């Protein structure tokens, strides 16, 4: 019941926002912040009451806050939700990141009420996906995240937002339909004809038909790979990120990409253990290619946001490497495979926090100069020290500096995967070096040297200040707008922006210094997944 409230509370708030057309913009955003905060508190309460590793550890049994209701009886699809060590960290991440986005958007000038309602809708969809224990329910929420994100990009994006939004929708929709086909295959292949994940994982379908199992895994893997995204299905990602609003990008990278990797852990591995073992090497290879491809292409970018987007491909590659290694049962012992799985899960949380922060920071570039191009910015450390400090911390965290959560995650992935696939792991380590190089290069270009900022007029013809925003801004900031476009014009992070970004970085630091907080929850569930895969 509590979990149902957690999932649908944001949707309820969204309904209130939509139904109250007279609500002022600030009040709407205030309601959004309040709803997200309450939701995060409830998730926190769930975490507090959650007792990992006592007896059953999750996936097939020992699920907390479980609700199981009939929905479509003829195909045995139900409203089955629950929490275990795999989903709880991601539910918490969703709560944290959406609250951060809410705080970040406190002064959203453009249709704030609809914007807040859309994000709340999106939050419900994301929470629902992570909580689902039924394939069809998972698919329902999974698809709704696509719809919500489409409208966020199409309605509030910049640049060629409509085209990017369409590309995003089409790509991920293809993925979701492949996923649906795979789910139907699981349903028809299962003994008792059910869409229930727990029942399917307990009694894996298609165990005795490797061809059918492989094809179903192919369909599911394809669907999840588009979402994750893995090479070569990642091409929607940079466009969608570049043109999305900052908060939208943060949610897209921080949460929506995790739906893909979470699907691998929750669905592909426990339900198709046989096929996963057989094809684990493909996962490893695709993971390593994504690591390298993401890193090198990111290195070549001339656009800050595209660069961050490509590092997401790189970071998700590590997750796949870890999960693939967990399937190489013959060549590694259970301990190593568990470490790899834990590392992959840890990476999901860590990437959500750090990349979320990076994308929120990238919004600063757009709001000040309407461009993300590297060559238009420089020496920002002097005029905007807080911004520069946050960017540096996020970048160092993202490149895997010890002390941050990213280090714990990547270290575990490599340790776990080394025994199973030494060659692939060593190649993947190159990715770390490239990422380190590109982040340092980016920091050097943006923060050091002489201060350069784009001229006041955005040359792409876009409106720099929206008409209805003008009078409000004129009174407050007239001193800054009339000045010539020099370095001093640049304003540092505003209070609410800082308040949204710093907690994310702080959490990444906490998880880097005190990893047990998260490991205690993750480890039993990861061990259960590894055990299920090894069947």
């Amino acid at each position, binding site marked *: 019941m509590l979990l149902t409230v957690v999932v649908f509370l944001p949707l309820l708030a969204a309904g209130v926002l*939509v139904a109250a057309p007279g609500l002022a913009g600030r009040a709407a955003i205030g309601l959004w912040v309040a709803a997200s905060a309450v939701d995060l508190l409830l998730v926190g309460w769930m975490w507090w009451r959650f007792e990992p590793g006592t007896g059953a550890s999750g996936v097939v049994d020992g699920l907390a806050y479980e609700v199981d209701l*009939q*929905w*479509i*009886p*003829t*195909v045995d*699809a139900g409203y089955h939700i629950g929490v275990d060590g795999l989903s709880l960290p991601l539910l918490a991440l969703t709560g944290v990141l959406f609250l951060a986005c809410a705080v970040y958007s406190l002064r959203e000038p*453009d*249709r704030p009420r*609809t914007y807040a309602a859309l994000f709340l809708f999106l939050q419900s969809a994301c929470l629902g996906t992570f909580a689902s224990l039924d394939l*069809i329910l998972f*698919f*329902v929420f999974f*698809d*709704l995240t696509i*719809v919500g994100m489409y*409208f966020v990009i*199409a*309605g509030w994006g910049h640049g060629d937002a*409509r085209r990017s*939004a*369409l590309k995003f*929708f*089409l790509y991920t*929709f*293809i993925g979701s*339909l*492949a996923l*649906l*086909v795979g789910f*139907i*295959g699981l*349903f*028809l292949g299962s003994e008792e004809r059910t869409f229930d994940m727990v029942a399917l994982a307990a009694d894996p379908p298609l165990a005795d038909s490797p061809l059918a199992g492989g094809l179903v895994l192919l369909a599911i893997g394809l669907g999840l790979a588009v979402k994750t995204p893995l090479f070569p299905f990642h091409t929607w990602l940079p466009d969608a990120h570049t043109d999305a609003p900052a908060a939208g990008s943060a949610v897209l990278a921080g949460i929506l990409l995790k739906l893909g990797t979470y699907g691998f852990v929750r669905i592909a591995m426990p339900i198709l253990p046989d096929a996963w073992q057989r094809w684990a090497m493909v996962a490893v290879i695709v993971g390593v290619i994504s690591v390298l491809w993401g890193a090198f292409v990111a290195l070549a970018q001339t656009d800050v946001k595209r660069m961050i987007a490509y590092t997401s491909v790189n970071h998700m590659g590590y997750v796949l490497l870890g999960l693939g290694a967990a399937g190489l049962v013959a060549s590694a012992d259970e301990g190593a495979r568990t470490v790899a799985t834990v590392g992959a899960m840890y990476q999901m949380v860590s990437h959500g926090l750090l990349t979320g922060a990076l994308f929120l920071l990238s919004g600063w570039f757009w709001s000040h100069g309407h461009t993300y191009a590297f060559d238009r910015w420089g020496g920002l450390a002097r005029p905007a020290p807080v911004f520069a400090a946050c960017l540096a911390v996020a970048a160092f965290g993202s490149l895997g500096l010890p002390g941050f959560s990213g280090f714990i995650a990547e270290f575990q992935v490599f340790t776990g995967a080394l025994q199973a696939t030494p060659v692939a792991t060593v190649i993947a380590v190159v990715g770390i070096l490239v990422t380190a190089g590109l982040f340092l290069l980016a920091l050097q270009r943006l923060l050091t040297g002489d201060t350069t900022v784009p001229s006041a007029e955005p040359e792409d013809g876009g409106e720099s200040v*929206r*008409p*209805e925003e003008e009078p409000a801004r004129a009174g407050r900031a007239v001193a800054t707008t009339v000045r010539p476009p020099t370095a001093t014009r640049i304003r540092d992070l505003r209070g609410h922006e800082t308040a949204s970004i710093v907690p994310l970085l702080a959490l990444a630091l906490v998880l880097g210094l005190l990893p047990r907080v998260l490991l205690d929850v993750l480890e039993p569930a990861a061990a259960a997944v590894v055990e299920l895969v090894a069947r």
Partner: protein
Amino acid sequence: MTGMSGGAEAWPALLPEALLLLGAVGGLLLGLWTPQRRQWRVRLLVTAACLASAAAAALALPGPAERVFEGTWVVDPTTGVVRIVVALGVAVLVWMAAPSVAGHPRETEAYVLMLLGGLGTVALAASGDLLLLVAAYLLTSVPLYALAGFAKDPRGTEATMKYYLMGAFVGVLLLVGVAALVLASGTTGYVDLAALLPGASPALLAVGVLGVLAGVAFKAGAVPVHFWVPDVTAGTTPPMAAYITTIPKIGAVAAAFRLLAEPFAGLPLDVPMLVAVIAAVSMTLGNLAAFAQTDVLRLLAYSTISQVGYLLMVVAVASRSDLAVSALAVYLAGYAITNIGAFAAVAATPAARTITDWATAVARHRWLVMSLVVCLLGLVGTPPTAVFVGKLAVFVAAWDGALAWLVVVAAVNTVASLFYYLRWIAPAFAGVPAAPVTAEGPVRTGPRTAAGTAQEVRGTPAVILHAAAVGSVLLGVGAGVWLSVASGAD
């Protein structure tokens, strides 16, 4: 399965149909003695007849499946579902048509014809005999010819002409098919046909199957007899277009389902494969043709052709999968609600024909856009709408009936369909905020404001659109309830 009975004691089984007929006759008589401006009374009567019919059908659903009047009329869950959906659909469509026919000299006739077409649709779905099938075909066709050209404008007349010629031509094919089947078996009842046809000559069977399937495919608007759909849809008024693309389709698909499940089940020909190919071609051609459309009615017309493709998937596996009946029940209901909703969006703004016009016309009506988004995404099959549940059930049934390739084709087509629905959604959604932000801010009386007020938005269709959007989501979420109702005592 068959409590064969004939004569007077079978009449109660046909209560829903009798109520529709009573409504039609009563409406006609009432219309004769009602002044021109009080014709809304007829509308009320017709609506009451539809609701009563739906209620009677719902009450009859849990009863046992039976064949009445010497096996010609089948009363089973599929018939029951069609009865309910058609009766409710006609009731809604009468109200949708009301703003455009109110005050028309032949207002009563429009309502009565709609009711009679609905009756024919139910007969189509319930027929357990080839001759009744032919009669039902005519009863669903003739009133619709009149309705298509109701406005008597050049476009409507041309559309009616095309519809009529095509209908007459396919009617002949249907008769040839029926004749061939009678020749092959010497009987017209489905039960006897199922027993006798497997032993007949394959050539005769092929002619018979092709002819009969052509008849139902025409009513369903499936490829290759779909050419009338876009022209009629775009030529007639939006409410009539909604009627023509929704109501007869339901009956035709149910009739095809019954044909495949009973007389054509054990044939030496691979009829399911033929239907599967028709399904695949329908959805593909419908989607491809819809890509380039800028006229909302034509776009919706091609969308209905592709929707029939998905519906025919379940027809193909009618005799092969236990899941087919429930899949048909949920998809038919979902399709009816969603399609009526999408057409209601067009009916709400009668002056707007293109996508851009429509987006401009509803610039001040955010709720309309929102409901349209729900309906169009519903047609794509986005959860949790009714069509999503229908699609899921249809995909499962088709795969279960060993047509996995068709499921893949359908999944690819679903993605393709998203593209053109988004072509409508995107300007509508983006156009809404653009108006207040760019034109309203500093200059209050821009040209856009004038254009905005010039476009009227009709109230009744708008209400129907909202209701359809809500209904589509409710039916999706409550699919379990609907299925348990629809499966009756099965």
